[in-house]
């Protein structure tokens, strides 16, 4: 993975830069000892590592503003970091960059049930937002798999999704407003708890901008009343095509499950061996979850059962109680861990139109044979967001490169059938060099112009998202 040469001037001025940061922050908020900086050398894309120049852990918007002002004056690139769970390298530093971590900014600032919002500092973890309101019957809907650890700052940066976004949408659909600090230290408020911008929807473009437009320090989030109950069913099929057709028929019938998850045979076998969830041995498996009162759940499941049985499933399993519901989810939730038991893996997240599912799975199978690497597929079928897990051996020379090449071919296929490179993980460095597959030069130019306005010096997370050659002229200024 190519990254720009670090700025020698910045490296040479490290002592002065650190001293200036210490002058505007509490003593415990600046980290520059090499052994402590190791903790920030990568995020969850662990294949690539580089310790930063220094790291700061501010506690307030004012401190973030002071830090950014210093870096703006000194020309220091800044890499914002939530909890460091990015699978795309969104928080990976360069040697000349400052890591700005928001982990200490985790307070709940306001909860308002009548207007149905919560305002939090951005370092707060996703799950603890629900934690703050669930006793009162509310929840925050987007639920990325890493929700126990990931920060809302990173969710906003990547416009994170989750298993339940079929019904509730992704981060951008649940984000009402932010306090954003621009690279020169200017603090702006975009949006607000009333939920509609007065002018251009700048909040809409900040969400998903991968920390390149500003540092979000506070956010207003929509909270929803928790449904009375939820229950999953498991349906096994003898072919991917039939499972895909069943998904399409459920959606067409007007039933809106909160989640439709799909696993293919390699993934089913791996999770069975690992988690013993009692899944049927079949080609494809769907987990469909619906919500509501007991009567509403029964009404929806009866309809789903009717549709599924028309597709001749090998198994249709309803959860009779809470324990059985947990077992249905157990395998799905263990899927990544199970694949990790077999070998190292790379997880992709391209999205495809649901109608292309059988074709794409067939092609992935063929490519798997061509590359000589196994792959399991587990994904959010209702919205076409795939998660192929390619197995490789990190200790075997050349295997990582082969795996990356295979991954790139899968993502190109996603774009070819009308989908996209990434559905919820973000571009980061991982998919940066594939952007040209999906976008023309003019398409990328339009996006980069937005960054020109928010961050004219291109100091915020500069070597991400756009291919280096596309952003070269801007980063050099």
């Amino acid at each position, binding site marked *: 993975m190519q990254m720009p040469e670090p700025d020698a001037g910045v490296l040479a001025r490290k002592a002065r830069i650190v001293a200036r940061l210490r002058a505007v922050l509490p003593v415990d908020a600046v980290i520059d000892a090499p052994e402590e900086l190791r903790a920030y050398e990568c995020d969850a894309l662990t294949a690539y590592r580089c310790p930063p120049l220094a790291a700061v852990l501010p506690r307030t918007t004012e401190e973030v503003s002071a830090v950014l002002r210093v870096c703006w004056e000194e020309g220091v690139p800044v890499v914002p970091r939530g909890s460091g769970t990015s699978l795309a390298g969104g928080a990976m530093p360069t040697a000349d960059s400052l890591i700005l971590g928001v982990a200490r900014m985790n307070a709940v600032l306001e909860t308002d049930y009548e207007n*149905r919002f919560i305002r939090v500092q951005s370092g707060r973890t996703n799950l603890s937002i629900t934690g703050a309101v669930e006793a009162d019957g509310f929840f925050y809907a987007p639920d990325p798999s890493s929700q126990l650890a990931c920060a809302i700052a990173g969710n906003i940066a990547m416009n994170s999704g989750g298993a339940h976004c079929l019904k509730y949408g992704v981060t951008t659909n649940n984000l009402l407003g932010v306090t954003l600090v621009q690279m020169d230290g200017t603090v702006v408020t975009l949006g607000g708890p*009333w939920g509609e911008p*007065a002018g251009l929807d700048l909040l809409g473009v900040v969400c998903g901008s991968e920390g390149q437009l500003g540092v979000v320090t506070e956010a207003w989030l929509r909270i929803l009343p928790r449904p009375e109950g939820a229950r999953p069913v498991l349906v096994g099929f003898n072919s991917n095509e039939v499972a895909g057709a069943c998904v399409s028929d459920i959606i067409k019938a007007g039933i809106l499950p909160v989640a439709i998850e799909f696993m293919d045979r390699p993934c089913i076998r791996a999770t069975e061996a690992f988690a013993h969830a009692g899944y049927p041995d079949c080609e494809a498996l769907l987990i469909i979850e619906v919500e509501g009162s007991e009567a509403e759940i029964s009404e929806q499941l009866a309809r789903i059962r009717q549709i599924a049985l028309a597709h001749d499933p090998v198994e249709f399993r309803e959860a009779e109680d809470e324990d059985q519901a947990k077992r249905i989810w157990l395998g799905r939730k263990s899927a990544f861990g199970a694949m990790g038991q077999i070998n190292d893996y790379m997880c992709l997240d391209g*999205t495809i139109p649901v109608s292309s599912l059988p074709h794409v799975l067939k092609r992935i199978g063929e490519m798997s044979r061509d590359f000589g690497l196994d792959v399991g597929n587990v994904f959010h079928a209702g919205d076409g*967001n795939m998660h192929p897990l390619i197995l490789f051996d990190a200790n075997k020379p050349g295997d990582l490169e082969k795996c990356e090449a295979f991954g790139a071919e899968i993502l190109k296929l996603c774009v070819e059938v009308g989908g996209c490179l990434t559905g919820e993980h973000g*571009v980061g460095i991982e998919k940066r060099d594939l952007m040209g597959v999906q*976008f023309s030069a003019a398409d990328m130019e339009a996006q980069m112009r937005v960054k020109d*306005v928010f961050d004219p010096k291109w100091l915020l997370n500069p070597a991400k998202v756009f291919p280096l050659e596309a952003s070269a002229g801007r980063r050099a200024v």
Partner: protein
Amino acid sequence: MRPSSEAELADAVAGSMRPLLVRGGGTRTLGHAVGEVLETGGISGVELYEPGALTLVVRAGTPLAEVEGVLAGERQRLAFEPPDLRGILGREGVSTIGGVVAANASGPRRVQAGAARDAALGVRFVDGTGTMVRNGGRVMKNVTGYDLVKLMAGSRGVLGVMTEVSLKVQAMPEAEATLVVEGLDDPAGLACLRAALGSPFDVSGAARHSGRSLIRVEGMAGSVAYRVRRLIALVGGEVSLVEGESSAALWRAVRDVVPLQGRPGEVWRVVTLPTAAAEVVARIGGEALWDWGGGLIWLLAEPGRGAEVVAAVAGRGHATLVRGQGGPVFPPEAPEVAALAAGIRAKFDPRGILNRGMMG
């Protein structure tokens, strides 16, 4: 000008020496922008419709009615329930889907299903230099690059002229019902809307006018019946029930602001916090139609109440003058936000020819 293809439109914008007034059907244009009229109605037609994937790709100049007709053929619809503002604004013309997205025009179901911007999955547009740009796509989950789709939704043509939009659509429900709650004053009637929206009963409309609070639920028949029962117990008061087509008619009237149509006075569209909804109206005076549980107020006020409106919403929302002689039409923004918006406009339309004078 009325180009008949995206290429013709790009040439028209690139070659224009004068400001352009971008227009779909002109049914919901606001403000005082001037220029040579550039109509998108010639770029029309459905590109792709996959009911099983809930996705529709359609050229921007396609009439809204045609889009709704195509969807109805598969028992689907636009979840965000775009309003028809011809009556309240006193306009003629044919609303286009591009105009709907450019205005982020969203009706009562916004409280449950989101706004037009939330349904927008992808756009193609021609920027102010005549360059064609694509963003987003036709899949529901897509975080590849910056989300210019959201930026374009609600941009009222000042950043570019949309030529195509991809939308997430929704299946029509099997049943709908509306609770009509009477006998409450405005503060109490609005509080009952907030209580309904704060319940787990998946309310898809919460509005109030003429002393009546309306609460809608939609879905499978058994589920609708169940939620109606629970909501009646929750809200109290004198409740009657309206179902099916009669319920739909009630919500068309809310969506299109029918109670305030054809009446003398100025019309403001106020976005605020639901808990401020009664007080904002009491401070300004006039007759209100509240939607979104009070978060949206259509207010028929006497002319010249601009200063009172601005004061009433300060710090808790914003207001747009949708019909009237005063101004400013669009709400002012904080200086640092206005600077960013102006910067974006200068990048996308460096000559400032697209809808000059619109949006601040």
